[in-house]
């Protein structure tokens, strides 16, 4: 890890900012960046130079309310075990949450990996295990690998409720919206998989630079310095700050496995609505692993939690602290929406660290 001194990185930011001649607006797309920026108190350090806006990169937060309701329907089916990453358990549904469903008798298990869910299915062939497949290109290849194994081994009681998302179409949707941005800090580990080259079409089309950035506070500041230097030179490029993990071409093997199992599809995002080509769905030959088909889930109409402004927060249009519910009706202990649940959520980060 290159550790430039804090003063040196800050002086780079100030110098580039002086050349630009105004405060720039940068979106940190990734929820882990949002968390790190808040925890390390980076915003005040660069207050005069950069307005940092959180983006749609917290997997739990961007999951459409309709998909949350489907998860709850599944959890209430007799004989079904729902296996999920921890954050999802507390996300509020319209009338319940997985946590509450569990208290009422549903079998909801928190797992560390999709593989754990497959093992759970194998350990008790008499019950059905559904894994809630949530996350971006960082998570989807591992889920695909488990899906391949389930299909090959004929594990008949294992299925997936898929709401995987692709980050680049969401970044384009943000730029198509009302928020004006000078650049993106792109997610470090999504970039490990898709490569910095994956942002180039976006950079060309919108003229907005991207820096694939690591997760230490010094990484984030260096990412900002690189971004401001690019803006100062009126260039539009996709570059890498997180060189110890990200390459231009990404992890081709992981992408191959992901695309062997999934194909791109339209997907609904909280706040951003349906974005063409922004999701993944199981390919025809893996459709038997699709929990929605297996359990004939009814159509769930689009729905929203009343009063929750997570959608506006995710588009970069609302500062969490300006939401009328923030800190009174909506807290991490009693969250109204997902952005207050996940430690990657912008509302939770703002509440906890200011």
């Amino acid at each position, binding site marked *: *890890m290159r550790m430039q001194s804090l003063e040196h990185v800050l002086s780079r930011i100030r110098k580039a900012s002086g050349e630009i001649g105004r405060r720039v607006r940068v979106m940190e797309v990734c929820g882990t960046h949002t968390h790190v920026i808040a925890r390390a108190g980076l915003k005040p350090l660069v207050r005069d130079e950069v307005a940092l806006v959180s983006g749609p990169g917290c997997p739990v937060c961007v999951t459409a309310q309709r998909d949350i309701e489907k998860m709850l329907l599944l959890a209430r089916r007799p004989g079904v075990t729902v296996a999920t990453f921890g954050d999802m358990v507390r996300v509020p549904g319209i009338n319940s949450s997985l946590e509450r469903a569990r208290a009422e008798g549903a079998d909801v298990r928190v797992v560390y990996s999709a593989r754990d869910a497959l093992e759970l299915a194998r350990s008790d062939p008499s019950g059905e295990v559904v894994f809630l497949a949530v996350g971006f290109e960082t998570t989807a290849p591992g889920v695909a690998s488990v899906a391949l194994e389930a299909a090959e081994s004929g594990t008949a009681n294992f299925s997936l409720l898929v709401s995987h998302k692709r980050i680049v179409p969401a970044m384009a949707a943000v730029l198509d919206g009302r928020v004006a941005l000078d650049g993106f800090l792109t997610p470090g580990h999504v970039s490990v998989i898709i490569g910095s080259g994956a942002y180039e079409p976006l950079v060309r089309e919108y003229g907005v630079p991207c820096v694939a950035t690591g997760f230490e506070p010094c990484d984030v500041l260096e990412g900002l310095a690189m971004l401001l230097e690019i803006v100062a030179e009126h260039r539009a490029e996709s570059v890498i700050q997180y060189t110890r993990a990200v390459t231009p071409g990404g992890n081709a093997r992981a992408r191959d*496995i992901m695309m062997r199992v999934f194909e791109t599809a339209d997907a609904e995002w909280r706040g951003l609505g349906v974005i063409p080509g922004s999701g993944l769905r199981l390919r025809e030959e893996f459709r038997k692993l699709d929990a929605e088909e297996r359990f004939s889930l009814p159509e769930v109409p689009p729905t929203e939690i009343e009063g929750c402004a997570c959608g506006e927060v995710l588009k970069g249009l609302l500062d969490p602290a300006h939401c009328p519910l923030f800190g009174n009706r909506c807290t991490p202990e009693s969250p109204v929406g997902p952005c207050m649940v996940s430690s990657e959520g912008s509302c939770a980060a703002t509440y906890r660290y200011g």
Partner: protein
Amino acid sequence: MCLAIPARVVSIKGTLARVEVMGNARQADLSLLDDVAIGDYILVHAGFGIQKLDRSEAEETLAIFRSLEEGIGEDAEP
């Protein structure tokens, strides 16, 4: 949440590895990576290795993490 701490591969059986992350033992699936050997450092996300890291860079990163841990004890994340 993305964990950026390098994991050292301790043993490999089929596609599964035992890895060590700052003293904690974990399991990591190596299906998404080419040619991983014992002693290599990898990034692990949701139970899967997603990237092989340069050994000397990984060791440098770990040294910084350790010094941070000793220095301020960071706030505890689950």
